[in-house]
């Protein structure tokens, strides 16, 4: 499955190994994984809300756009929702291509679009109580380069 939305943890090492093994003809594999930062111990937990149905549609659309724009042999996205602890993996993308530039650019594109165009919302639980993570202006600006 090229796009997965799940609450369960995933095994980054196993996913990367499987993705790489199943990328025939590829010369370059790039992965990105996003982790819950511990913020120096001030963050106790994170909860990710999403929009079931639209989430899968949005991720499929972003992946298809990447595959259409770069010469990729494969691309995948895994994104979790629900409660997460500091240090846990939130999500990952992987891209495979003949050449490194396509793999890097497509992975950055996927991340930029995931940040601002996939319906996930993060809430942080810390010393100051609960806070919804605000979108960053530069996350929106990052889309303009593509």
């Amino acid at each position, binding site marked *: 499955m090229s796009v997965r939305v799940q609450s369960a943890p995933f095994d980054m090492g196993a996913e990367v190994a499987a993705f790489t093994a199943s990328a025939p003809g590829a010369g370059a594999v790039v992965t990105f994984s*996003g982790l819950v930062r511990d913020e120096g111990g001030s963050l106790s937990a994170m909860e990710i*809300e999403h*929009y079931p*149905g*639209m989430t899968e*549609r*949005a991720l499929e659309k972003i992946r298809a756009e990447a595959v259409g724009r770069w010469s990729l042999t494969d691309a995948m996205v895994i*994104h979790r929702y629900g409660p997460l602890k500091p240090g846990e993996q*939130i*999500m990952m993308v992987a891209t495979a291509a003949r050449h490194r530039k396509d793999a890097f650019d497509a992975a950055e594109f996927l*991340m930029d679009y*995931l*940040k*601002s*165009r*996939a*319906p*996930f*919302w*993060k*809430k942080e639980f810390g010393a100051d109580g609960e806070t*919804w*993570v*605000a*979108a960053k202006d530069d996350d*929106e600006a990052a889309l303009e380069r593509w």
Partner: protein
Amino acid sequence: MIDVLYFAWIRERIGEPKEQVETTAATVADLVDELKTRSEAHALAFSDMSAIRVAVDQDLTEMTAPLNGVREVAFFPPMTGG
């Protein structure tokens, strides 16, 4: 009947993740005007539209989007995936 969905702090302010709305609103913006009259919580939730994004039938769109034939409208803050 349109299903109206709320996420994140909008859901928390309105107090419900979803409501069914009987409406003749022509656009999302018209629907928002109707929703604001439902309760003080609704009025508060929709007080700053610059902080709100909308999806119509699960596609991100603008407040000017038409509503004819639409089954589902969702309101939420800017997304923070990744």
